[in-house]
């Protein structure tokens, strides 16, 4: 538990001190990143469905950003 507290406190310190960091990519330099083709999830209705297909066919799960319930897997 002591290690967990230490990790959280060190993280807080880093975060608080990091608030003074100046953004190295200015807002006016983010034109390319704002292009819809750069979205991580351009079509949520489609990616959620495909995630469900892979969840049902594979043993691995998680860290895809989706969530849901049910089985639909037999």
């Amino acid at each position, binding site marked *: *538990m002591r*290690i*967990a*507290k230490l*990790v*959280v*406190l060190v*993280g*807080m310190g880093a*975060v*608080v001190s*990091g*608030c003074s*960091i*100046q*953004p*190295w*990519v*200015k*807002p006016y*330099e*983010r*034109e*390319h*990143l704002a*292009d819809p*083709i*750069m979205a*991580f999830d*351009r*079509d*949520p*209705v*489609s990616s*959620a*469905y*495909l995630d469900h*297909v*892979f969840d*049902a*066919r*594979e*043993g*691995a*799960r*998680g*860290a*895809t*950003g989706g*969530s*849901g*319930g*049910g*089985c*639909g897997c*037999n």
Partner: protein
Amino acid sequence: MTMSRMVRLMKGQPGKLLALALLALTMLGHGSTSFAGVLAEDRADALYHRYQGGGVEIQGPSVLVRKKLGENFAVNANYYMDFVTSASIDVKLSASQYKEQRTQKSLGFEFLHGKTTYTANVINSKESDYTADTATFGLSQDMFGDLTTVSLGYRRGWNHVYRNIKDPDGGKVRDPTFAQQMDTRAYTVGLSQILTRNLIASLNVEAITDEGYLNSPYRSVRYADAGDPRGFALQSEIYPRTHTSQATAVVLKYYLPWRAAIEGNYRFYSDSWGVNANTLDLTYTHPWHGRWIFDGRLRYYTQTQADFYSDLFPRRDFQNFLARDKELASYTGYTIGLGASYEFSVPWAPKWIQKSTLNARLDHILIDYDNFRDATKTNPGNGILAGAEPLYRLNANVFQLFLSVWF
């Protein structure tokens, strides 16, 4: 610290850790400069999906609507259906073809306060033999001049598992003697980071723990039985009642000089059942002539088997836990996908429609199993003995057609 250890710690001392985490987030909120965040655009999608492969056909609609209510509040709702016709290899071995229907409804809320977005979702899924209720809570925080977004999430699921049996008329009815429960808890931590004016990265970690009835009430394992003409007999599978997994995914997305994007995604997965998996996913996105966007995808997946999996156990009740689910076998999967999106406008469309796209997508999945055999091909008369059948291979096509409208 591994995620499973973190989860155990959180279970043991939830109050203290939660307080520390909230304190950290509060300080983040006060420390950041005031670029206002934005909620996603108002949008409606209507999708038709179809999966066909391995004797299974699943199709149905999905409708997703997102709507902002003012600048700080948004709601989203999804209605999803699966119509299943299954004569999969599992079904062929131990049951008969069946039809099933699943309906999933979800309602979500987003609240934006400064640079923090809070989300909450409730999801309900119903099948004749399975119901699931899920609640999710999340928050994300933009910081460092909006170069960095940190997110935290929690998901809780309550599942009820039933079993259908044949009624005297040949239809199916729920078995009144069988009802089981399964609960899920999931914890997620995410970080997305702008690295350069053309490169963005994200890191997602998710720990999921399940407790309760985790196997299928229908599926069987097989064991060697010299007294059976096929050389094997069947018994019900038996899984552990707990399952804990950790997954870590790293995504990099790069804007190419000719207005195109390439995305690489790697995920490592491990769980308490001994399954380790690696996923590598590459997507190339290419706009064409203003109105078209094409996507090409290659995905590679490989996993090791669960500790208690076997294609053919030496004898009945060989060990405490028994599985022959092909999703717990050792195998490698390949997916190739192509998508096309066309932006169009209808002259007589209402003025509140800002943009419309028609989209089609086809993914082909090929899975080569290393130790799951096609037990329907056992034929001792022709020298194909139990345990020597050809290895199973799954070919599946996944088709999507959807209309998207921004308003």
